[in-house]
């Protein structure tokens, strides 16, 4: 047979294969939403909360008449009032305004490094799972080392070496974050590797990279989406903890953890300084956790809750 014709047949057969595998485990976004709306109403409420936070972060300059770094010493530590809904801080700055701007930092640090570590972890996990052998062993040993690191201490060591600041918080979180994802995706890949359609694809001569990207990746996606949603809240918590210890985002930038940290000095005179950003962290983390739980039940019931 003519080689080009052969390639053509391969691609047609392969298309049907991936179609077959797609219908078995992948769902339309609309149907996922519908199932969430019937069985997991909290997840829908959570989505609304998340959207509100994102809108608040994006439109912060429009939503508030104050500047986040405008110091007004004549109005220090003012309790919550109509003018300043969450009061003012030790520099007379409006707490609500700082929270809106702070949500930019907290959301970006919650989402972007998590996305990067999920992408990295997925690629590494699929390669380890599919290739097996020495590659697998080597990758998993490195993952073991990363996972046996006390996370907060590693973050602190990296921050010590590189200095505080948003970029370094980013780096630290990717450095730590990929290993957990890689582990789960590897396990999933090992399972999928034995499935009939992957075997069939291998038999008709589909290249390895293509099998990984076209046949294994789409079937790992539900798991990956759930992992991503559930990893965001822990990233937000890590960032706020680092900033709370003074090793994360540096002033004059506003982040929720940093606001709590500076507010702690005034805990007994002006508790709103601490508790307003705390409530924001709680709300966004709860929202992502509830959404993640709902998505897991709908997309991937086998993934254990931990």
């Amino acid at each position: 047979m003519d080689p080009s014709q052969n390639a053509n047949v391969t691609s047609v057969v392969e298309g049907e294969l991936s179609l077959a595998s797609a219908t078995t485990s992948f769902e339309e976004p609309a149907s996922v939403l519908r199932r969430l709306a019937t069985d997991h109403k909290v997840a829908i409420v959570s989505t609304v909360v998340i959207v509100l936070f994102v809108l608040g972060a994006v439109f912060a300059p429009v939503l508030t008449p104050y500047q986040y770094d405008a110091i007004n010493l004549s109005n220090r530590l003012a309790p919550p009032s109509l003018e300043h809904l969450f009061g003012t801080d030790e520099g007379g700055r409006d707490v609500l305004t700082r929270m809106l701007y702070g949500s930019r930092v907290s959301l970006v640090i919650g989402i972007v490094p998590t996305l990067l570590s999920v992408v990295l972890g997925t690629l590494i996990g699929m390669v380890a799972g599919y290739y097996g052998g020495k590659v697998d062993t080597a990758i998993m040993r490195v993952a073991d080392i990363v996972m046996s690191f006390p996370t907060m201490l590693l973050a602190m060591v990296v921050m010590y070496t590189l200095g505080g600041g948003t970029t370094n918080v980013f780096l630290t979180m990717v450095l730590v974050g990929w290993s957990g994802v890689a582990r789960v995706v590897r396990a999933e890949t090992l399972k999928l590797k034995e499935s009939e359609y992957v075997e069939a694809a291998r038999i008709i001569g589909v290249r390895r990279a293509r099998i990984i990207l076209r046949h294994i990746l789409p079937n790992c996606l539900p798991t990956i989406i759930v992992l991503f949603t559930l990893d965001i809240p822990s990233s937000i918590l890590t960032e706020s903890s680092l900033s709370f210890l003074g090793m994360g985002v540096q002033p004059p930038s506003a982040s929720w953890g940093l606001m709590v940290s500076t507010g702690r000095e005034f805990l007994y005179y002006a508790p709103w300084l601490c508790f307003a950003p705390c409530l924001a962290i709680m709300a966004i983390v709860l929202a992502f956790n509830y959404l993640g739980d709902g998505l897991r039940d709908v997309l991937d019931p086998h993934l254990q809750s931990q």
Partner: protein
Amino acid sequence: MSGSLVHNLVRRLAYAFISIVGVAALVFVLLRMVPGNPVATLLGEHADNETVERISSSLGLDQPLPVQFANYVLGALHGDFGESYTLGKPVSELIGPAFLNTLWLAIAAALVAWVVGIACGLLAAIRKGTVVDRLFMGFSLLGVSLPVFMVAMLLQYLFARYLHWLPVAGITDWTGYILPAIALGWGSAGSIARLVRSSVIEVLQQDYIDTARAKGRTNTQVLVLHALRNAMLPVITLMAMQFSGLLSGAVITETIFSINGIGRLSVQAIAGRDIPLLQGTTLLCTFVIVMGNLVADLLYNVCDPRVRKGA
């Protein structure tokens, strides 16, 4: 059979050792990437070059990095982690008592986590789908979602500052552990409760539960003798891993409640740019975590006859 068990154990011990050395190497390199000579930083700007060089060489800092690392590992194997730059004592003498304080805190927090977590998870599983279930699961998710510093400050504000029931910070007697233990343990209690619930619900659907009921066992007997016993398997693993996490993850709790443990010592080490001390605390915490994971693996092997006989 037992041969494969021993083989398994040896392999796992080897992996554990590799992990610890790997982390030690990583920390070693990271801490030496900091620009500038640490000795010069410590002595201040008035120190002359000669003094800096003399002290650097007496600390072995003028040798190549691999030699320094080899010396460090050899020393660590003998329990010698170097001398703290800022506190003027051997690191081993500093991390010992600190670790003891952290250990007490971790035990207290683990008690909170295990008792509350298992009780909540079990009740939620039995009353699946009811208000009780939602309430307990909400409480658990809240524990997982709240930042530790928030819980710690809230407890401090309410019970110590406002109600004057418990000490604000510091440890003078056992009452000092109550608030930190709750702050640190709630999150772990949350994840244990969630795992217990899903695990018990899964076990209750198995055939042998029906068999036990058919044999005339009461509901309580079925629950305790059959369901809980089997459902605890993944939970025990999680508990072992969490305990090592509690031992190494108490940085914020210790800072807020002024407990002189490993976490607070690490923060002090960073503030004072005290490299040997920071190296000592991270190495100790890594050791604890790796050992925790090893124990979790072994417990799983011992508790599950299928795993024991299988691979």
